[in-house]
């Protein structure tokens, strides 16, 4: 039996585990469970200073640099959006590094 990769599986089960890791990070820091699509700041009431902690966490954990127009709150609103940002920057920034 082989486990089939289901391309329709929701982003929360992203094969690289970014969403799962971020949900764990959030739970560890806020002591409550989060959904991948919850707006952390509007619905979740997290502070803007916490947003900065998320930026630092993403940079350290995924070896990316978040700069310029990528550094805006909208990119950090939900776990899904953060994961998308991580994937995009990992791709472009590793491209850059390897020429």
């Amino acid at each position, binding site marked *: 039996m082989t486990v089939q990769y289901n391309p329709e599986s929701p982003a929360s089960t992203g094969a690289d585990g970014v969403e799962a890791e971020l949900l764990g990070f959030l739970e560890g820091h806020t002591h409550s469970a989060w959904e991948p699509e919850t707006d952390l700041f509007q619905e979740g009431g997290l502070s803007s200073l916490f947003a900065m902690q998320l*930026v630092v966490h993403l940079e350290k954990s995924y070896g990316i640099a978040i700069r310029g127009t990528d550094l*805006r709150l909208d990119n950090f609103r939900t776990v899904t959006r953060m994961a998308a940002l991580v994937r995009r920057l990992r791709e472009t920034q590793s491209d850059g590094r390897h020429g």
Partner: protein
Amino acid sequence: MSSTPPEPPDPPAADAASHALTVLGAGVMGVGITALALGHGLPVHLVDTDRQRLDRARDRISDELRLAQLLGALPPGTVPGQLSTGTDAAAAAGATAVIEAITESADLKAGLLAEVSALVRPGTPLITNTSSIPVEELAGAVDRPAELIGTHFMNPPYLIRTVEVIRGPRTGGRTMSAVLSLLAALRREAVVVRDAPGFVTSRILHPMINDAARVVQQGTATAEAVDALMQGCLGHPTGPLRTADLIGLDNLVDSLRVLHERTGDEGCRPCDLLLTLVREGRCGRKTGSGFYNYR
């Protein structure tokens, strides 16, 4: 009448590069004001007598700039201004405006403003960011009192759009308009008030915070409960004690003392709990703990 020359054209829009600020004091406010100015494209020379503070300030400023950008508080597409730092206030000689944000002590401020006033080009606005010391009290120390004015940026300056501006009895009209155009270049909205101990915001906020601390001291409620009530029932944005931690409790005690000495209002005498926290080095966010823990 016919000989009246035509009105000159409007001056060009304030160009960020035409400013060269010197900020005195690299503490909570000096760092915040510097970040605000750099983020709006203005160059800043930052001065502090404490070399270690100055070294830490660079990292703190770049953190604050990132936070400001994250929160959309900076004008998009602006090239940040250049930052330079030093321990000698003599560097203020070439500034287009000087913003003083050192420790809240009338003697320290008078001494430094006198020194700087003797160095700058006549006509350069000297802006004190004091919380509570009347501008007129400091005006006695400077060479040209018309050049001294108060502004009251609040922490963090890039998120708080409104700035209290204090016009002392001797503040000149040219200083006034130069400062208003500087604030416009920083996209701040000025509310001009008259001179008095604590002006408007500190005169109201600081005794209120002192009362909030006293309520905790008397055991009526925890800091969390006080803030929750002030937020939830009275619409205060963060609660007075979280605000106190953001201001810095040492600075708050200094400001309350200035107010108490000058108004005689017993409500401004810093309460024991504030004094104890400061004695223990728990000055709020900047030291990692105060009414709350930040570590």
